[in-house]
């Protein structure tokens, strides 16, 4: 099947052109480097031809390992005999930046005998400002067709389609090399000269952009707006997604209530009720959060605000080896690590993205909240100070949240300093895209695609682990006695591991089951202590734990343990999918588990002194 490559600089409107030509709905983002994956789709006008959308790039001269992968991928694609044409998109409002890359692309095409066509996007902006440019002259100079289009309005696309058809008909014709041997340094100079000679003159969008920037980047007002936007985003994950999450849980429970009684066999009934519906519910419940966060982040990216937010956060996060672009993923991680890991996609520096992945699981996610609530209710007295203004339990909750965040930042800081020379990195040179109104339809579609990605990629892993843990907890006691089950027996086996924390086998079992999701710790302990509905109301369970004689030192050690340890299975699944490395997820699990254990022992011994 014949293929056409679409390539261009970040922010040149490539994704929008791809959508126009294929009728697909890849999301368009007004944020540099958003096209991370290679997308492909059939041309709407010629369905037997595939259009391949390559990641946006400023240059074919790679300065990081990840860029090199993209460059190599492009070179390999040019060797594919099915590739008949390369469409190189330029943003005419910022011609020089686009032209150098275009010349590099044309050179590579000449070397591989492929035809290159330059698509000059954003012509509508020039028209709006009543500015013209000599595209015919430019075309003659670079020896390639230059077609004016507006990807946003669709104007000029007919000519692109005609050119594609012509290219298909003439694909056997050879290419006349003109710059095949020209080095990068000369191409840079040529691009500079051509941009000055043929590029539009005058202020395009700059004045209005500068006015908005002076507001959004203002020391006081900009800071306030930033906090307001971040607060809204945080609310969106915590509060706006909650009704849909509750609805999914209720729907699964309702379906289970209808289906389960129809199953005659007790074991099959328990399996369907707890493992099947429990397993499906375990990952479906995250879908609303992923959808809402992807949508909100999409608005920030499309509007151009994301780049400003990254700028505002850059300086403080740089102290810990991170970048300003790490802030939103980490903030999302406070609600749930999974949307946070997805949000880290927009970090173009591989090193910073890796560090952000490392920090996210240490953010105090909402699944830790029931665990903290139980342990604080059990071990921290409800005394208040300053006329009730400050409560010991509230302070403890703040302390454990703060502790988790600091652990994340310290981890990235230590890793940055320890491995300074081990990673290639990108400098903080961030293009500030023009402010634009978001395109709503692609935003919704992208949020839907991201949710679907989670269900299809991570869902299988989460479901499998849920079934395995159910199996271990169910047999051989047939669900009657968790303590006597294989899981309970494993708890007895691992009890010596938890003895240094002053914990018995029941806590060992609860910690093991919390791998499904941290809050399962509370439900499992409730089962162990024979208390129904402990995940809804923790107080009776907290009283039971107190009555069992567990020490405050053990309670504090558990708090420390949960602040650091045990990424849940969902986090591990999505981390290995997004990072492309299962080893990374396993390493992080092992390192965080060990660190949590050692710090919990230290906390236990420290508190025991008092």
């Amino acid at each position, binding site marked *: 099947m014949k293929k056409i490559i679409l390539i261009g600089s970040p922010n040149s409107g490539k994704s929008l052109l791809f959508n126009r030509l294929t009728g697909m709905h890849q999301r368009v983002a007004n944020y540099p480097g958003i096209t991370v994956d290679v997308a492909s789709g059939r041309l709407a006008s010629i369905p037997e031809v595939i259009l391949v959308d390559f990641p946006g790039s400023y240059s074919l001269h790679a300065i990081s390992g990840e860029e090199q992968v993209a460059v190599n991928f492009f070179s390999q694609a040019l060797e594919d005999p099915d590739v008949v044409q390369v469409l190189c998109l330029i943003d005419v409002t910022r011609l020089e*930046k686009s032209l150098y890359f275009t010349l590099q692309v044309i050179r590579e095409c000449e070397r591989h005998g492929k035809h290159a066509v330059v698509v000059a996007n954003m012509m509508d902006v020039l028209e709006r400002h009543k500015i013209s440019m000599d595209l015919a002259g430019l075309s003659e100079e670079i020896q390639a067709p230059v077609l004016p289009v507006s990807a946003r309005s669709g104007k000029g696309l007919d000519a692109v389609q005609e050119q594609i058809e012509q290219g298909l008909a003439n694909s056997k014709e050879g290419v006349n090399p003109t710059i095949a041997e020209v080095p990068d340094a000369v191409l840079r100079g040529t691009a500079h000269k051509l941009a000055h000679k043929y590029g539009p003159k005058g202020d395009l969008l700059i004045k209005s952009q500068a006015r908005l920037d002076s507001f959004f980047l203002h020391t006081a007002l*900009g800071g306030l707006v930033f906090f307001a936007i971040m607060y809204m985003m945080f609310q969106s994950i915590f509060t706006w997604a909650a009704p849909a999450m509750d609805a999914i849980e209720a729907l699964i429970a309702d379906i289970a209530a209808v289906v389960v009684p129809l199953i005659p066999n007790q074991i099959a009934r328990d399996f369907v009720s707890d493992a099947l519906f429990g397993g499906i519910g375990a990952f479906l419940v995250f879908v609303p959060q992923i959808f809402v966060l992807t949508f909100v982040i999409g608005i920030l990216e499309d509007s151009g605000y994301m780049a400003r937010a990254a*700028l505002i956060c850059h300086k403080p996060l740089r102290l810990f080896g991170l970048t300003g672009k790490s802030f939103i993923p980490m903030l999302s991680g406070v609600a749930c690590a999974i949307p946070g890991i997805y949000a880290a996609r927009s970090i173009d520096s591989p090193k910073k993205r890796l560090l952000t992945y490392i920090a996210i699981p240490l953010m105090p996610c909402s699944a830790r909240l029931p665990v903290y609530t139980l342990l604080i209710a059990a071990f921290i007295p409800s005394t208040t100070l300053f006329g009730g203004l400050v409560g010991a339990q509230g302070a403890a909750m703040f302390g454990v949240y703060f502790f988790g965040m600091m652990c994340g930042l310290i981890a990235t800081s230590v890793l940055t300093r320890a491995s300074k020379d081990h990673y290639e990195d990108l400098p903080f040179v961030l293009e500030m895209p023009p402010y634009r109104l978001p395109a709503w339809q692609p935003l919704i579609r992208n949020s839907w695609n991201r949710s679907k990605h989670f269900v299809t990629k991570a869902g299988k892993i989460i479901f499998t682990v849920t079934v395995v843990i159910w199996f271990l907890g169910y047999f051989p006691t047939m669900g009657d006695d968790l303590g006597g089950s294989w899981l309970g027996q494993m708890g007895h086996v691992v009890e010596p591991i938890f003895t240094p924390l002053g914990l018995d086998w029941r806590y060992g079992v609860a910690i093991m089951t919390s791998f499904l999701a941290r809050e399962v710790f509370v439900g499992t302990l409730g089962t162990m202590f024979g208390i129904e509905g402990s995940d809804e109301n923790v107080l009776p369970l907290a009283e039971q734990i107190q009555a069992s004689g567990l020490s405050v030192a053990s309670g504090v050690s558990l708090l420390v343990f949960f602040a650091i340890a045990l990424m849940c299975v969902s986090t591990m699944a999505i981390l290995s999918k997004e990072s492309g490395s299962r080893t990374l997820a396993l390493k992080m699990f092992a390192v965080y588990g060990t660190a949590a254990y050692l710090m919990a022992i230290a906390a236990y011994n420290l508190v025991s002194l008092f």
Partner: protein
Amino acid sequence: MFSSLWSLQAGTQGRISDFDTALAENYRIRLMELGFHPGEVITCLQTPAFGAPKVYRVANSIFSLDDDVARHIMISPVDPA
């Protein structure tokens, strides 16, 4: 008289004269690819507080650079027209 791009105040211009030798070659090349050529006039548009990256205009593009990069770009005053 040469100074670094980082020292440019908001609303003022400078002409890129050279890059500091401390700036890695890869970074230098990337900056030139983005339009930061010696001889090019740069306008500083914003200097956000607390040492945050500054905002610069080069040709018709706007970029934000942090001090780690901007300190290594040498500029000279722009001759009055």
